[in-house]
Every structure is written in structure tokens, then in C-alpha cells.
């Protein structure tokens, strides 16, 4: 329902009159109040809460730097007069001949890695403080969508410089889709637009990277923030501040986002930009982790570089892909039977339910051992990302925040992080027997952490949760 037209005194200052004119046509003051000056955030938000606003900052950095890069970049895989692919040459042109082009490109390439650092930190915050729990499931699901789209944007963007690593990385990842039985080869053909990664692939990846996927990303970011502002921010104590309100209906433990957190976040932005600028100016390749040296060789469809590795932010999932060998399939089959025996002998299913579980286990075994391990590797890699979406329903703990969970949970979450680092580390190394073993244990731990969460999250002694947030004024 539109509000009634509001008249103000003709003697009011011009600024007030203008605002009134706008407010009668567009809910400017209303939006400002709802999302900034009267959006109450818990007063105990800590270090981990910088990363949400920082993610928004990096998004803006990527969009702005990207717009300027597109003014000079050419998505063209054909060879120029010098025998160099046009796309590769245009990136070198940006680096060497466009005024300040090197800076804009390094901002964009460093921004990609920082986007993932910031988002992984942001997600970890959600994990330890239970920010995905009721009523914030949709915020979490929109966030998982953002992560998936970010991955697609990073992957399509990585092809654009048309270097050796770009080319072979894309070739391998598109072939992942070809491993899907029956529809796989046609699907891979549809993604590539040719029988091999080529000019058609480069052009469509460019289109996806600069317009299609960013539009989806922006939509998801808006949905993420609208959902957040509907239910309000969680906090390190995992307490709903809306439960206790003062006489005027403001949460007792809440403070207006503006000016308190806008100023607070501005400090985070300052520190972040110092680190960001240091990397852009002094270590733009991030020691080979942010930009690969192999990518300074133009794409050659006939020769794979001696060592190809994904960028660091995909490396953990890549480890899981490599972990799935024919041997590993027996371990997975054993896990399926372990779950099936649990379902048959321990859970309270009726005889039909038990028959279904048994039948499911038999079919599962046939599929696990009947289809190539290569396909299951792709499934596990995808599942490792998708499983995050189910977190709100896997967590059965009576309390939200790790602060009030049993102490051993801290070690478990610590082990989860270390495991993620180990998987990342082996993901960027060349394949070897030892890295395969580590990746296999890491994969089991990663999946077990989530799949067994409905059980372990209920174990142990939980600490009493206070009714007010813990906060020391300073």
C-alpha cells in the first residue's frame, strides 16, 4: 500500500523539501532507516563480522576493475600476425602498453583470490557461531548460491588470459562433466561449443564471466542481504537479540548499524585495503598461488604443461577429486554398508523401511563399483560444495554458538580447518602416492564431518546460554 501524500510546511529548508518530494515518490528515508539507521545489529559482533562487508567491498572492486579491463581485452583465440593468440596478446598489451593497465589487472587478479579468502572466512564465521540455523537457513542457502556462482565466475575468468594453465585447467574441468554417464559427453560439448576447448569456448566463457554470472551473483547478494535484514544478524553468542526489547521495541542488545557498525566496518576496510594494496604492489602473483607462472606461456592445445594445478581456492576440492581411485571405491562401499547396518539394526525403521535401506545399499554398491571411479570423483567433488547447503538441517546441537558447545568441538572445528588446508596443499602439488593417501583421509574427514554431524553435534556437555550477549564496553 502506498503511503498517503505527505505535505510539509512550505517554509521548510530546501533540503527537507527535496527529501519530502523524493519520499513521496520513492521510499528513500524508509530504506535508509530499515537498512542503516534503524537496523539493529547485536553490540557484541567481533572480528569475524568484518568479512561480510569486506565481501561486498571486494565485489565492488571486481566489478569496477573488470569494467575497465573489458575496455582493452579481446576474447579471441585466433593467432595474430606474430603467431600469438589475440586474447593472450591483449592481456600482455594491458600489462605493458595500457596506461596503468598492469595495476587494474593486478587489482582484478588479486581481488579474485581475496574474494575467496574473505568469503571462506565469512563462511567459517557462520559455521562456528551457528549463523545458518533457524531462522537464517535462507540466508545460508543464498550464501551457498553465491559461493557456487563465484566459483563459476572464477573458473570462466581464469580461461580468459588464454595461457597454458588457463587452457588446460578449462580442458580438465569441462571434461569433468563428460564423466557423467550417458549425458556427459554431449553436456561437455555444449559447454565447450566445440570438440576441444577453443575460440567458441573462450567467447562463451567471456560472456558468462562479464555479464551472465555477475548478474546472477548480484541478485543473490541482494537476496542474501534482504533475508539478513529481515531476521537480523546472529552474533558470537548465538543469542536472538530480538527476544529482549526495551519499551520502544528496540532490542536491548542491539545498536543501530549506522553509525556504529558503518564506522566500525570502515576500520576493517582500511586494514583490508592496506593488506590488499601490499599484495597488489609487492606480490601480485602471490608466490605462484594467485597467478601461475605457467600462464605466461600462450595456450598450446598440443602440449600439457609438466605440472598443472588449480588456483588455491579450488585446490581442496581438486584433492578430493584426485582422492577417488578404484581402491577408494571399496572404502566408500564400506561406508554405505556401515550406514545401512545402522539403519537396519539401530534406527527405528519398520520392516518396509529396513527392506528399502537394504535395497538402497545393494543398488548403491552396484553403482559405486559398476561405474568408473572417475565419475564418483566428480560426484564427491561436487558433493563437497553442495553438502554445505544442508548444514542447517545437519546440525542438531541444542545451542548455536561454539562458545556454549562442548570444549572438544573447538578441536573438531580446528581439525576441520587444518584438514581443509592439507587438502588445499596437496591439491596444488603434483600427484604422488603420499598425496593420494592424505587426500583420501582428508576427503573422508571432510565428508564425515558433515554427514555425521546429526550425531556428534548432540554429544557432550553443553554450557548454559546466557539471556544477554556477553559484551565488555571499552
Amino acid at each position: 500500500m502506498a503511503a498517503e501524500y505527505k505535505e510539509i510546511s512550505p517554509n521548510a529548508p530546501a533540503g527537507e523539501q527535496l527529501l519530502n518530494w523524493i519520499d513521496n515518490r520513492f521510499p528513500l528515508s524508509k530504506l535508509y532507516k530499515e537498512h542503516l539507521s534503524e537496523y539493529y545489529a547485536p553490540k557484541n559482533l567481533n572480528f569475524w563480522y568484518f568479512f561480510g562487508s569486506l565481501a561486498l567491498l571486494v565485489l565492488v572492486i571486481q566489478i569496477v576493475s573488470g569494467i575497465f579491463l573489458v575496455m582493452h581485452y579481446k576474447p579471441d583465440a585466433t593467432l595474430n600476425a606474430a603467431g600469438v593468440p589475440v586474447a593472450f596478446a591483449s592481456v600482455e598489451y594491458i600489462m605493458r602498453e595500457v596506461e596503468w593497465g598492469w595495476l587494474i589487472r593486478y587489482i582484478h587478479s588479486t581481488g579474485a583470490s581475496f574474494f575467496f579468502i574473505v568469503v571462506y572466512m565469512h563462511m567459517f564465521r557462520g559455521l562456528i557461531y551457528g549463523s545458518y540455523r533457524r531462522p537464517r537457513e535462507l540466508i545460508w542457502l543464498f550464501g551457498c548460491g553465491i559461493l557456487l556462482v563465484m566459483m563459476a565466475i572464477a573458473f570462466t575468468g581464469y580461461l580468459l588470459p588464454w595461457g597454458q594453465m588457463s587452457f588446460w585447467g578449462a580442458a580438465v574441468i569441462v571434461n569433468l562433466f563428460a564423466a557423467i554417464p550417458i549425458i556427459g559427453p554431449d553436456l561437455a560439448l555444449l559447454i565447450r561449443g566445440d570438440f576441444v576447448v577453443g575460440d567458441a569456448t573462450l567467447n562463451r566463457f567471456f560472456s558468462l564471466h562479464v555479464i551472465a554470472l555477475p548478474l546472477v551473483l548480484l541478485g543473490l547478494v541482494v537476496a542474501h542481504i534482504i533475508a539478513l535484514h529481515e531476521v537480523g544478524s546472529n552474533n558470537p553468542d548465538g543469542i536472538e537479540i530480538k527476544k529482549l526489547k526495551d519499551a520502544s521495541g528496540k532490542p536491548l542488545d542491539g545498536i543501530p548499524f549506522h553509525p556504529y557498525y558503518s564506522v566500525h566496518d570502515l576500520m576493517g576496510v582500511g586494514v583490508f585495503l592496506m593488506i590488499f594494496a601490499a599484495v597488489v604492489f609487492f606480490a601480485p602473483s602471490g608466490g605462484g598461488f594467485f597467478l601461475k607462472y605457467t600462464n605466461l606461456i600462450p595456450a598450446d592445445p598440443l602440449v600439457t604443461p609438466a605440472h598443472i594445478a588449480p588456483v588455491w581456492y579450488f585446490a581442496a576440492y581438486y584433492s578430493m577429486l584426485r582422492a577417488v581411485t578404484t581402491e577408494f571405491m571399496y572404502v566408500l562401499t564400506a561406508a554405505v554398508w556401515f550406514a545401512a547396518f545402522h539403519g537396519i539394526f539401530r534406527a527405528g525403521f519398520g520392516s518396509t523401511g529396513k527392506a528399502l535401506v537394504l535395497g538402497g545399499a545393494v543398488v548403491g554398491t552396484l553403482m559405486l563399483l559398476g561405474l568408473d571411479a572417475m565419475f564418483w570423483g566428480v560426484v564427491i567433488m561436487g558433493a563437497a560444495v553442495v553438502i554445505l547447503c544442508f548444514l542447517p538441517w545437519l546440525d542438531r546441537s541444542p545451542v548455536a554458538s561454539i562458545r556454549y558447545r562442548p570444549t572438544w568441538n573447538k578441536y573438531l572445528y580446528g581439525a576441520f580447518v587444518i584438514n581443509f588446508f592439507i587438502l588445499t596443499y596437496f591439491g596444488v602439488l603434483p600427484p604422488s602416492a603420499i598425496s593420494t593417501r592424505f587426500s583420501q583421509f582428508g576427503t573422508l574427514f571432510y565428508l564425515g564431518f558433515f554427514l555425521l554431524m546429526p550425531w556428534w553435534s548432540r554429544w557432550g556437555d553443553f554450557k548454559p546460554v546466557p539471556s544477554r550477549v556477553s559484551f565488555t564496553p571499552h
Partner: protein
Amino acid sequence: MSEATVDNGRRVWLISTCAMGGVGAAAVAVPFVSSIQPSARARAAGASVEVDISRLQPGEKMVVEWRGRPVWVLYRTPEMIASLEKVEPRLADPQSERRVFPTPEYALNRYRSIKPELLVAVGVCTHFGCSPTSRFTPGDQPGLPSDWPGGFFCPCHGSAFDLSGRVFANMPAPDNLEIPPHQYLSDTLLLVGEDQQA
């Protein structure tokens, strides 16, 4: 609103309008999806290539491009040929029986080739499509499986192939390397992309 106010006649029209709109939207999707399939030019680019092998020496490999992919021509030495039989117990599919990349009939042998000394194979790993590197020197070497008989090693996920392009057992790659259709036009001229049956 109560149920009585629903005009069933209008509702039928509403449903059929939505259905027709849906059909129209689906029809419009066809040209868009078709447009991202390989174009007529990409489909036509599969011509066969002639390869002059007169300068290839025993123990050497040359690479030619066919349909945008590397095709290897390896001139195997007698020692290399001898290794093919010895490695067979360690291979996943020594007889090339899997049908994912069907081996042409004339290459359904230990050498996977028309002439025992000349291997013609698509140099693309059957795992995720990297091009394996040549590691012809036998013996234990860093980064290679122990007791290495000489062959090809994929740098991406560590799949190993023998000198006939047959994959070793328990490797990420499920299949032997693809053998393209090929024939010899003369002793020194090879045609990749067409064989006599075609």
C-alpha cells in the same frame, strides 16, 4: 474470497493461456540452446591430415594436430616393442576390450597399430583430457611408478600408459589412449582421420 466467486470458464482460459505461453517460451529456448552447440564450421573442421613420417627415427615421437587434438606418431625401437609383452600383467585392459574409445579392428593387437613399430595414438588422457608426457627411459625415477617400463605419464593426475598407450591398472584414467582411424598411403606417408573401411 469465497470459492463461489471463481469463474471456472475464465480459469480454463487462464490455464490454457499459461500453457500456451509456456510452450512459446520453450520454443524460443530452442534456438538459444542450439546456438551454443558446435557451429557448422566447428563440425566441418574434422578433415583428415597427411603426415610425412620419412624423417622419424627409431625412439622418436612426432606430434600432429588432428581435430584440434595432438596425435602422436611413435617409432618404437625393438627394446620398446619387447617391453609391451612384459607389462601386460600390470595393465587394466591389455586387449583393449573396453568400448568407450573403440580401438579400430586393425589396431586390436598388442602394438595397437598397423605396423608393430609405429604407434599412432591420440595424445589425450582418457581421464580429464590432459596430454601425457613421454617418459621413454625405463627404470625407477622420481615422480614415476616404481619399476617403470617406459611409456607415457599424465602430469595432471598421474595416469601411466605403456608404449602402446594402454593404461596401467589402478590409475585415474579408465581407458587406453584412443587410436584414431588411420592408414598408410605409402611407406612414408600416413593419413590420420580416415581408414580403409571408411
